[in-house]
């Protein structure tokens, strides 16, 4: 098996992180962003430097680090072989733009044509309805367009590197696989995805089809749950403790009777 060899020469600016898709606009960029780092390049552990500081040492392929709390701003990110000086980088991205208040995944992966790149994805952390889970599938592999199927049915079609498919689905277990777009040729899976309620499950297709290193890396973001819409728990009416209207009527009649009787008594004494 031949995994892709990373050249020591820096691949400078392989990706510009400008225009982070649907990420929060920097107009109200006050809060820190949560930034996870995903290692999707097979066969090469790395040290990750953020603004010149070694932040994730000996970061292994298939691992997910973070989230880091990063204030909005521009960041220089460098990947080196473990222990190598920052000058001899495998991958360098300067001035990566991190907006405020966002949840991002920074993915080191192969481009469609097999070059190591760093791609930022904005993670949808919107609240889920009760009983639902969010499934996000990201194509970050050196492979052509694919369809993602769940239970044999295509759910995301024609996904290309570096795009994603996303859906909110019923929580529970689903058997998923990945096929070449428009074909039955399976390239990944099938795998059982346990989609936990109130959680976003992000699945990355990584590696290289040519190098036969295709694999998946998963990341989850929890705490997106909501309460049920309501708790309907009775339709009999037996427990209505309110005063039946007849009793109010009786009370009114009683007061009238008493007044009438008193008037009679009083008038008789005149």
């Amino acid at each position, binding site marked *: 098996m031949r995994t892709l060899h990373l050249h020591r020469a820096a691949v400078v600016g392989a990706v510009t992180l400008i225009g982070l898709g649907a990420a929060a606009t920097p107009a109200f960029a006050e809060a820190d962003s949560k930034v996870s780092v*995903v*290692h999707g390049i097979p066969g090469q552990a790395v040290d990750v430097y953020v603004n010149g500081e070694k932040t*994730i*040492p000996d*970061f*292994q392929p*298939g*691992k*997910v*680090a*973070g989230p880091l709390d990063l204030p909005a701003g521009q960041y220089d990110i460098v990947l080196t072989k473990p222990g190598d000086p920052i000058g001899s980088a495998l991958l360098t991205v300067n001035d990566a733009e991190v907006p405020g208040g966002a949840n991002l995944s920074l993915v080191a992966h192969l481009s469609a044509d097999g070059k190591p790149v760093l791609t930022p994805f904005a993670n949808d952390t919107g609240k889920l*309805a*009760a*009983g639902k889970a969010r499934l996000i599938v990201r194509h970050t592999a050196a492979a052509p367009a694919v369809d993602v199927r769940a239970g044999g049915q295509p759910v995301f079609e024609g996904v290309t590197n570096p795009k994603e498919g996303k859906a909110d689905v*019923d929580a529970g*277990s689903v058997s998923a696989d990945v096929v070449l777009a428009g074909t039955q040729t399976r390239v990944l899976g099938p*795998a*059982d995805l*346990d989609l*936990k*309620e109130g*959680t976003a499950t992000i*699945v990355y297709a990584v590696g290289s089809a040519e190098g036969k290193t295709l694999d998946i890396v*998963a990341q*989850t973001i929890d705490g997106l*749950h909501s*309460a*049920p819409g*309501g*708790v*309907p*728990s*009775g*339709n*009999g*009416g*037996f*427990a*209505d*403790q*309110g*005063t039946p209207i007849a*009793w*109010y009527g009786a*009370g009114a*009649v*009683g*007061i*009238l*009777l*008493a*007044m*009438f*009787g*008193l008037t*009679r*008594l009083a008038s*008789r*004494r*005149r």
Partner: protein
Amino acid sequence: MSTPSHGGTSRRLPGRALLVTSLGVALATGSGVVACRSQPPDDFGPSVASVSTSPVPAPAATTATAAPAGVPVRDGTLPARAATETPPARLRIPALDLDVAVDAVGIDAATGDFAVPPSVSRVGWYRYGPGFSSPAGSIVVAGHVDSAAEGKGAFFRLGTLKAGDVVTLTGPGGKVREFTVAARKRYAKSAIPLDDYFARDGAPRLTLITCGGPFDPKTRHYRDNVVVTATVRG
């Protein structure tokens, strides 16, 4: 007008008028008593927010926050199937002579509501939230107060629970977890703070929910929810 004059004209005894008066007074008093007695009992106990924020035995310290200096790193493997909450099997409330089976339930797909078991003699545990052995958060069990088809439900008298009453959950293998009633509240369904009652963090607690308040015979719905919060005993 009622100047008493003992030499008044009392051709007839004032019997009928007296009778009418006393009957009227009796009726008015009686209905007043009924109206007062049928008022639901007052709420008691701390608000749900203060229950949920009381000291937690720090269960939230996952592996992610363990390393103070370094960045937490995890395996990017698919989430394990086994990571589900433990379902409670039975709920016992001695003060209500209640010993009832607990079903694990989720959401009614058609309405987005809590899928309370249709049988009034069973109650439902919200399986997406904290479970029998959860160290934090609100274990929610809901049951019918009644149903048109089956009459009174398991939680018919939930609203009569008092502070300090014991509530027991039985888990798998007969393990028992005891709670004591700390609060009982009644809310219009439109105003109940469900996010707090279904919170998955904060102090461990048991939340029992049913219906109550005025019943609308047209829609066949109760206006309110009755909620009992019980905290871990001991």
